[in-house]
């Protein structure tokens, strides 16, 4: 059986004015980078990466961007959502000094990987890139892991002014980084990918998902790679062969939508 299991929300945290974290009981093991399908009964079912992993609970952190996320945003402790998963492959975390680059809400799904790295006492640098200070979240949380945390804002309202990828380029020049992990706008990840020709690289892709079971083909990239099963994490070599990476994704009808 692979159907949504109705689960009560344990707690919610408002991270910014439009970003929320929802915690619920889910005792199954989850690898950082994996995701759930979250059913908002009567509305929609959408993919959400795991943003916090404990033995018995898991959390998701998301931005209110549309129908389903907006409904989800209204829910509070005690409300019920349907959970199926975890799905996908998750990150492979290895190396002596790791760089994590999160753009926008991307930092949410990197957080468990960063926590994991820090628990292994791995030297960890984190760049959180947001448009403006109000959109920033998880900075303190990441600092508490012992990672070195930089923030960039497009408008310079906090931290360094500029793009996360620019700062990443600087870090990559200065430090010896073994691996780069990223989640964020695909064009940002594409830029990072180009910087990481000789560094191990893993990026988490987002594609429209329906089954999340590797069957319907809705989420495919490249030569039939299913983001829901073969991803969402792809490494640099694989991304090299995915010609659509950074170029286009597809909508619910399967039409190409170019990134710009």
């Amino acid at each position, binding site marked *: 059986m*692979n159907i949504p299991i*109705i689960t009560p929300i344990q707690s919610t945290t408002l991270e910014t004015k439009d970003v929320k974290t929802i915690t619920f009981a889910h005792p199954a093991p989850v690898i950082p980078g994996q995701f759930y399908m979250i059913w908002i009964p009567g509305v929609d079912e959408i993919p959400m990466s795991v943003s916090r992993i404990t033995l018995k609970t898991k959390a998701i952190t998301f931005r209110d961007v549309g129908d389903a996320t907006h409904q989800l945003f209204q829910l509070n402790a005690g409300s019920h959502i349907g959970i199926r998963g975890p799905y996908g492959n998750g990150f492979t975390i290895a190396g002596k000094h790791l760089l994590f680059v999160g753009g926008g809400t991307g930092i949410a799904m990197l957080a468990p990987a960063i926590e994991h790295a820090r628990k292994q006492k791995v030297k960890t640098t984190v760049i959180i890139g947001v448009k403006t200070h109000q959109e920033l979240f998880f900075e303190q949380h990441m600092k508490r892991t012992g990672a070195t945390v930089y923030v960039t804002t497009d408008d310079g309202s906090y931290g360094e002014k500029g793009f996360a990828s620019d700062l990443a380029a600087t870090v990559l020049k200065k430090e010896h980084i073994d691996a780069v992990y990223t989640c964020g706008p695909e064009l940002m990840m594409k830029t990072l990918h180009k910087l990481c020709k000789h560094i191990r690289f893993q990026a988490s892709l987002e594609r429209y998902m329906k089954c999340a079971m590797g069957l*319907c*083909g809705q989420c*495919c*990239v490249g030569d039939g790679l299913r983001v829901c099963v073969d991803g969402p994490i792809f490494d640099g070599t694989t991304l090299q062969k995915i010609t659509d990476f950074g170029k286009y994704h597809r909508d619910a009808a399967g039409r190409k939508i170019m990134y710009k």
Partner: protein
Amino acid sequence: MVDISTTIGSLRIKNPTMLASGIMDEDAGSMHRMIRSGAGAIVTKSIGLHAREGYPNPTVLELEYGLLNAMGLPNPGIDAYEDELQLLKKSRVPIIGSIYGATPDEFARLADTMQHCGAAAVELNVSCPHAKHYGMEVGCDTQLLYKIVTAVTEQVTIPVFVKISPNVTNIVEIASAAEQGNADAIVAINTVKAMKIDLETRQPILANKTGGYSGRAIKPIGVRCIYDLAQHIKLPLIGVGGITTGQDAVEYFMAGASAVQLGSAVYYRGPDVFRAVCTELKDWMSAHGYTNVSQLVGAALP
């Protein structure tokens, strides 16, 4: 030596396992992967004249013994899909264009484009159990079906397959209408109407509420349909429904199918299922002294 190639009318395929419509076939890359996974032929997602987003999620569930889906015929529309098909033009594995529409004219136009894009055959989806105005609603009206099939067979020169539904009182009657319209093969079965209710929220889980049941649970239903059809229809038959192993394929052959399609098995056993089923089929055939698929076709018929 065991030869597992087979023919469906004039279409010869290297192995009898075809990818069923709606699975990993919305874009050229996916279909290419299925070709690399060993599928003997590819049936495209069912394509209409215009883009359709399909139903909201949840659209697919795994139940205890099978899958349940109500995708709602999502597809980018035939014009956008042409681009995908162009990329497969060099493929040596036949691409069969699945199409859906509401009228004979729509079907004919879609078939025509499929032929232009290099499709080796078209498959008329007149059997989707959960799309208003399309699918089953068309395929249960024998007169309309006859007109659709006639319109398509008069329009194109490539073989025309008609995929029919098990959700009918008399499947032979439906297939006969297709036969009279000069179809070249019958594909059976599409999914079985079914549903799943969530007890906690007291509501159907699929956004569309009801959907189509596929996978292992429906194999005995599909085998029976092929067996009934084989006794009354002269056209070649293509068996679909729950085929997951080589032995499942043998069962369908014995019931009368000349080839099989795999859908849900891609979930149960991964994309490599085509190669696995072919290996199992060959092993079974050589252990039982068969050298050719045609020796199995219809072996269980009275």
